């Protein structure tokens, strides 16, 4: 579904340095764009900061978004910036409530594109049930940025039944992956300059907070750890967890959900889907006793239809992640020395 809001008539087509200077142009941009679309009681105060009422344990997270290209199959940088921070809060077992939103715009960005990004932000906020309560806009000279960078920070209240920590992981825990992996990374890759290939892979970026909070409401402390395997993919996150928990992790390759198109694209480009970035995917470490019930509940959720148990926590090989390969061999999963680069043959 294409979400649209009519763009206001403006007397400028592209964003220039003046739009970040705090003067008349800044106000024009904010009035006709940001406040109209994202306005709420707190934001409309237009104060230097936001006054918030929070009760109980609070989670706080921030993330910056630099995706290139800024429009990609299945979304744009705007919804990514909202979903990213919303999901980080959800992984803390928190209900996301308030966001800050900062733009660093490279001069020359067409206003129409900025508008599309704002509209995506608006709908992503509505879907997640969060409010933008404070923000900032800066413009940098041409060549000093890459179209637009967005930073969001978010605050949420932790669910009273939630107790999410690496410390809670124990031997026997089952590891659930909520959706097919590597989809977002390959959607971006398919349109990256110089690497374009024809595919119908679309990003799975979405907010996971409703899914997560419903699981926590049902299963509470049986959910030991939640994490979203964004950069570095599933492999990197599992390795980090094994190292920090001092326990071993075993996963089974054939249980990893993977769309056919994504698997083919990875083969073609010589990339390992285990290291490709994800968006609408989370990993849950769940008590062995409740794992099947959590899986069944998750599979009824729109974000978890293809959820699978991919492995478990073991005492053997502490700090190591071992994967049973498709043909039944064993392989150690380690971190990559840098960004995954396409292989030559």
């Amino acid at each position: 579904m294409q979400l649209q809001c009519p763009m206001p008539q403006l007397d400028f087509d592209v964003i220039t340095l003046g739009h970040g200077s705090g003067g008349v142009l800044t106000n024009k941009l904010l009035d006709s764009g940001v406040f109209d679309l994202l306005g709420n009681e707190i934001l409309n105060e237009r104060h230097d900061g936001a006054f918030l009422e929070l009760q109980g344990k609070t989670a706080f997270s921030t993330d910056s978004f630099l995706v290139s290209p800024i429009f990609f199959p299945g979304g744009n940088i705007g919804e990514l910036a909202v979903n990213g921070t919303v999901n980080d809060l959800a992984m803390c077992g928190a209900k996301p409530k308030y966001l800050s939103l900062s733009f660093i715009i490279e001069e020359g960005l067409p206003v129409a594109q900025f508008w599309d990004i704002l509209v995506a932000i608006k709908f992503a906020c509505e879907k997640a049930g969060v409010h933008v309560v404070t923000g900032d806009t800066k413009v940098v000279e041409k060549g000093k940025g890459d179209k637009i960078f967005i930073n969001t920070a978010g605050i949420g209240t932790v669910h009273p039944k939630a107790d999410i920590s690496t410390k809670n992981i124990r031997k026997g825990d089952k590891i659930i992956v909520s959706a097919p992996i590597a989809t977002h990374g390959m959607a971006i890759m398919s349109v990256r300059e110089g690497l374009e290939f024809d595919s119908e892979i679309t990003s799975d970026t979405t907010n996971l907070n409703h899914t997560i909070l419903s699981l926590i409401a049902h299963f509470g402390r049986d959910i030991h750890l939640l994490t979203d395997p964004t950069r570095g993919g599933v492999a990197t996150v599992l390795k980090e967890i094994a190292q920090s928990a001092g326990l071993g992790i075993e996963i089974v390759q054939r249980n990893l959900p993977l769309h056919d198109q994504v698997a083919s694209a990875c083969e073609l480009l010589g990339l390992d889907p285990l290291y490709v970035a994800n968006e609408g995917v989370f990993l849950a470490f769940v008590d062995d006793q409740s794992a099947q019930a959590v899986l069944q509940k998750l599979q009824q959720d729109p974000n978890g239809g293809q959820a699978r148990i991919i492995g478990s926590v073991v005492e053997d090989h502490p700090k190591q992640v071992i994967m049973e390969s498709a043909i039944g061999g064993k392989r150690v999963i380690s971190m990559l020395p840098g960004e995954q680069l396409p292989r030559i043959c």
Partner: protein
Amino acid sequence: MKYMSEYRDPDLARKYLTEIENTVSRPWSIMEVCGGQTHSLVKNGIIEMLPKKITMIHGPGCPVCVTPLHLIDKAIYLATEKKVILCSFGDMLRVPGSKKSLLEAKAEGADIRILYSPLEAVTIAEQHPDKDVVFFAVGFETTAPANALSVLHAHRRGVGNYAILASHVLVPPAIKAVIDDEESQIDGFLAAGHVCTIMGNAAYHPLSSHYKVPIVVTGFEPLDVLQGILMVLRQLEQSTAKVENQYARIVREEGNIEAQKVINEVFEVQDQMWRGIGKIPQSGYAVREKYAAHDAMKKYQVNITEAPENPKCISGQIMKGIKKPFECSQFGKTCKPTNPLGAPMVSSEGACAAYYHFSGMVEA
């Protein structure tokens, strides 16, 4: 999935392993020549599944690894000093030259781009008539047709600002060099399937009959590799030595004639330096004089000579199968994927890097 899952079937893999187990009667050393096969062996955990009597030796078949240092230095020089748009396959970027890698040069502002096809580099040259564009044409016989085609394409379309920096290496002379080394004791070879897809199997028959060594042209999926090992093993156990084609679904005996024509039109065979091994006679490609205008070696007078390798690196012995990565005193200590001392640690297909990643060593 069509043509992927079929070759990763665990039940068939078990059948092959049982057959290998039942066939092997004494210790044998088998070299998989191609880095792609090394990758498949380690990635699928095949080495641990094989009977102890079979030792897999990882050959020199990673073109990224064996690209000489001074050519990487040249590529960096062209990108930084001559301000060319330097295009490359992705895994060349992290390989350190004598001072820095292409990735570091890119971070410092050089215009270095990752491409999948050299033809895209010609398009970039057409789009930027004011800039010179150079494609770092690395690879075995497999990538040679596309690299050669880019030269032909630029020549025909009059794209004068396009050139390639060629660093092509050829497999059969490398196999010969490995066999000729007195220290190496390899009983049979898995030849690189994709190289043979282009070049055919002709060059391997004299090698096999002269040295009495089984050579099986093998693919890259786990079942391909297992079947290739079984085929070599059967020959060894029966004391035969011939060329067989495991990868018959792709490789024809004569290879791809059209691709060979394109290669021969643009390239001629020359002696070639292999990083970690040294000079191997008649083991590389140079751009023919006719296309000198598109040869970065001739187009840019660059005075960069051979750079010395780290003396502690035993990569030559690794790539000839004389030593295993674990037997190197520097492995995993001073030599890591983030700081490789030599060829086999630089690309994920190199024997040392493959061992490092899949054996669970952790970057400190």
